[in-house]
């Protein structure tokens, strides 16, 4: 394997094989498993500066020393020695849709990326396997000085910006999978919005895991400068493969003074994927950070997007749904950390589980000693749709300041029989009625999505609901 990898690095290895959809031969891969040599190999393949190699190597040391999480779902089936930590499918970053390799393009075609781009999006960046293969940016945005590119390119082109923020909100030692990502990260999105610039249309990126055993470790870094505003949408879907696959992303969002950022994710990977992500934002003075987070797929999801409100008057929100179907263990929630005066946060979490799925909410609200006058409101609602499924709600509310207010509410129930009865008494069949109730339950979430996503999400839920009655 080492010989092949070496050959690949020299450009002597595999080449593109067109014609077979979803069967792309990677041109560079480090093979299974992870050693210091793998980390050096990844960095060398990307011609990275020394500081990034150092960062990776230190993170790798941390990763080796750290324990697996001591809470949440069972991660023991995850075999970290049989994961492919890096592969590259395309040796170039395409600027135009036409230049994207045909079979990759077809896969995205089916997912509707170009259409979305035409109608809604200012720029589009699609990640296939480990690197960005398609990248386009609206001319207007470029004129306004917005930087929107894959993170690898950003390391080369904007080293000072990247270096200032990279790994600062989520240091490698934060958790084992953040350390892993820091060691082997590849791809991901970099966005910088200059002072006062407001991006009107959503910026979108599409992530996708393809081959079994491939690990995807994208690294996203967003900086919204003072008074600026951006709405970023990330969507995921993947075909079904039998071997387990790991996805351990790190996303850092810096929302500076008076700025605004919304980060929307729809995650619908196949149910063989372990999705162990670390997403964190900081909001400075009077800044607003909003997470909109939908989790429909993956075998195991552990994800707790957080907002550190570090400036006076900062605001953080989380709006999430989790749909745990058969064999799915979804352990998600939000963390709102109030570190400054008069900050406010809200969490709305909707969970559904059926066919033996497990949808757990694990969240945290913390008011630090300097959070005078701050407020938080949390609502968690869960519907357990059948006898096989289960749900835990595990919130932690820590208050270290006497002058704050916090409200937390949660409800767990089955589908309301009264609502069902009402609808069925009006001639609506049971399956349709159930679907209507579920749609109503998730509506606060779907109505916050861009139109196309809302349509797609509704379709996905309909699909999940098929055969749920009877």
């Amino acid at each position, binding site marked *: 394997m080492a010989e092949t990898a070496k050959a690949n690095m020299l450009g002597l290895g595999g080449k593109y094989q067109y014609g077979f959809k979803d069967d792309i031969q990677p041109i560079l891969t480090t093979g299974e498993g992870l050693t210091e040599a793998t980390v050096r190999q990844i960095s060398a393949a990307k011609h990275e500066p020394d500081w990034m190699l150092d960062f990776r190597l230190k993170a790798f040391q941390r990763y080796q020393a750290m324990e697996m999480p001591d809470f949440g779902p069972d991660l023991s089936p995850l075999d970290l020695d049989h994961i492919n930590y890096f592969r590259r499918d395309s040796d170039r970053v395409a600027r135009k849709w036409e230049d994207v390799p045909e079979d990759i393009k077809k896969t995205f075609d089916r997912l509707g990326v170009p259409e979305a781009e035409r109608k809604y999006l200012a720029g589009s960046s699609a990640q296939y396997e480990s690197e960005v293969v398609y990248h386009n940016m609206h001319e207007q945005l470029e004129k306004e000085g917005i930087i929107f590119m894959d993170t690898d390119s950003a390391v080369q082109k904007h080293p000072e910006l990247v270096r200032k923020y990279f790994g600062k909100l989520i240091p490698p030692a934060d958790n084992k999978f953040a350390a892993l990502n820091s060691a082997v990260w590849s791809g991901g999105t970099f966005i910088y919005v200059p002072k006062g610039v407001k991006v009107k249309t959503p910026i979108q990126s599409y992530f996708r895991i393809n081959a079994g055993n491939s690990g995807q470790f994208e690294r996203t870094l967003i900086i919204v400068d003072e008074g600026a505003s951006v709405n970023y949408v990330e969507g995921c879907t993947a075909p079904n493969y039998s071997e387990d696959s790991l996805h351990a992303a790190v996303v850092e969002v810096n929302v500076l003074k008076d700025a605004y950022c919304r980060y929307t994710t729809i995650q619908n990977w196949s149910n063989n994927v372990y999705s162990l992500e670390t997403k964190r934002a900081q909001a400075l003075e009077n800044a607003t950070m909003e997470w909109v987070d939908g989790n429909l797929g993956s075998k195991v999801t552990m994800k707790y997007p957080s907002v550190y409100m570090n400036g006076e008057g900062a605001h953080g929100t989380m709006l999430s749904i989790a749909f745990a179907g058969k064999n799915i263990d979804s352990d998600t929630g939000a963390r709102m950390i109030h570190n400054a005066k008069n900050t406010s946060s809200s969490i709305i979490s909707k969970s559904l589980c059926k066919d033996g799925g497990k949808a757990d909410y694990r969240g945290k609200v913390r008011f630090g000693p300097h959070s005078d006058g701050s407020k938080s409101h949390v609502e968690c609602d869960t519907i357990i749709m059948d*006898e096989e499924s*289960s749900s835990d709600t595990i*919130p932690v*509310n820590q208050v270290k300041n006497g002058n*704050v207010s*916090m409200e937390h509410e*949660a409800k*767990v129930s*089955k589908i309301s029989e009264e609502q069902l009865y009402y609808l069925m008494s009006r001639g609506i069949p049971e399956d349709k009625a159930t679907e209507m109730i579920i749609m109503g339950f998730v509506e606060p979430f779907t109505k916050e999505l861009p139109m196309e996503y809302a349509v797609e999400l509704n379709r996905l839920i309909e699909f999940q609901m098929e055969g749920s009655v009877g």
Partner: protein
Amino acid sequence: MTNLQTYPEIANYAQQTSEPAWLSDLRIKAWQQTKHLHLPSFGKIRYQRWPIQLEQPLEFHQSNPKLLQNLKIEAAKHLVVQFGQTTVQQTGLQSLAAKGVIVCDWVTALREHEDLVKKYFMQQAIKYDQDLLTAQHVAKLTSGLLIYVPKNTVLTEPITSYFIQDATSKQDFVHHVILIVGENSEVSYMENLMTVGEQPTTASVIVEVIAQDNSHVKFASVDRLGKNTTTYLNRRAHLGKNAKIDWSMGMMNDGNIVGDFDSDLVGAGAHAETKVVAISTGRQVQGIDTRVTNYGPHTIGHILQHGVILSRSTLIFNGIGHIIKGAKGADAQQESRLLMLSPKAKGDANPVLLIDDNDVTAGHAASVGRVNAEQMYYLMSRGLHKKLAERLVIRGFLGPVLAAIPSDWIRSQLKATIEGKLIDGQKDE
């Protein structure tokens, strides 16, 4: 059979108190287990470094009743007063005995009702080897009370107990109550925990309630353990079919304490209402972990916790509603509310729901905030000064437990205690 000779401490104590051999054996088993057992985890309550483990030797102590002279004790109809390991007063127990109701202290219980103690002591509600704290408790237990109410017996007057820790010398306070309520019976029990003396000491207090089918237990307590006492307080009920327990607990302690309150709803239709109010003052930490587990179908578990935090103190409320698979039609609801009266106060409200069945209703609410501004405005606009208005609002906030105290006398005592704690706390602001 374990050789008593290798445990001279237990052997000596057994000889002094003539306790039965099975208990000494159980103590030895428990003591051996302490080497392998760990401290239990109560969510975010970090008590592990407190002097909560029982370090003092197992010893018989006689306490001096004269030290209780200044203590206010209710002249209740059915009354038991214990000071340390010494029973000081027993009133009105004959009329109970006539109905077959047993109320007696630990030593008497072992002598006269050994079979009852053997059957229920750390066997059904709590297992002796559940964790390090329960095992240490069994190994070091020196005082307690047995109450047995036979079936089909309804008691109209509450049974009142005062358990007063003797902290005039350095000895652990290890106390155990077994309350067995037979089928179709009804009892109201009022417990008072207090401390006399200033020695830094450790208390390990366990109450086991066995509520058999169709019984109804009203359990009220006012806990006022001293400033230098570090306490592990575990109260746990095991409920049969359609049995009901109403817990009303006032946590007015001055020292650090972990309160672990559990109800196991085993029989179909069993019902637990747990109400806890707490005031933390000074620099103390009170951690309260209240759990209801719905095992049986159509069981109902409700938790209500209201707490007030003053000065630099900490109050942590964990509430856990756990519905086990198969508990069809079960209901788990909880509410935890914290009032912060000082900027340096610290509080956690962690409401947890663990739901393994779908045919259930479950919910929780938690809040942390300051005293309601509108209520304050209303009272102050009527001429009340701020601190008095604050105390009135708080008294209303603590109402759910106040109202459930079965004795007017103890209720007014509790009000006075609350008032005292609040005035004390307000001074620091």
